């Protein structure tokens, strides 16, 4: 089975991203929403952690746009219809509340 992990907290001063990356499987994906998109801030430890390994990475487009963050080539920007489709493509959704 496969899991779509969803983060929404800023990776700075919070351990959700670290814990998520520790347990995410090779068939899984990661979707950054809300303040979790700050992990795309270039040159930071969270950004490097995302790039340190192959990862199916998705970003909720409106959250990146609102925060003036560029979507890196390795990630795919999605809207809500795509979010719904993504949650169907993966067998389960694990939101790190």
């Amino acid at each position, binding site marked *: 089975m496969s899991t779509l992990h969803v983060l929404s907290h800023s990776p700075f001063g919070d351990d959700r991203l670290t*814990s998520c990356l520790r347990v995410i499987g090779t068939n899984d994906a990661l979707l950054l929403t809300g303040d979790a998109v700050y992990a795309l801030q270039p040159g930071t430890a969270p950004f490097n952690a995302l790039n340190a390994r192959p990862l199916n990475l998705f970003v909720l487009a409106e959250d990146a746009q609102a925060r003036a963050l560029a979507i890196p080539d390795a990630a795919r920007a999605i809207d809500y219809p795509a979010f719904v489709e993504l949650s169907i493509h993966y067998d389960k959704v694990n939101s790190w509340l």
Partner: protein
Amino acid sequence: MPKSLLIISRQAPWSGPNAREALDIVLAGGAFDLPIGLLFMDDGVFQLAAKQDAKALQQKDLSANLQALPMFGVEDLFVCGDSAAERGLDLDGRSLEEARVLTAQEITALIDRYDQVITL
């Protein structure tokens, strides 16, 4: 076959009702005889610290409720070894000895095995 549900409890026991409300989901599932798993991760591992004193904060004793889990039919109990090690928590004296200590790899497999997950 009923669908299985894994609850990942990430909150310390004394940070408001979150840890208890995560446990309530588990207990409700156990009451309905559903296949429920509970994994303690990140600050959630502090729920398993020995010799906690709920009375010091005029709280209800969450540890006592955790002890009752096997009686409520919830036997799939796990704790993240890395989270405990990072926090200097000695799991040898943990209050819920039924909880199996898992590596990160084992947690990946655990999440994979369950039908649905709630991480609180």
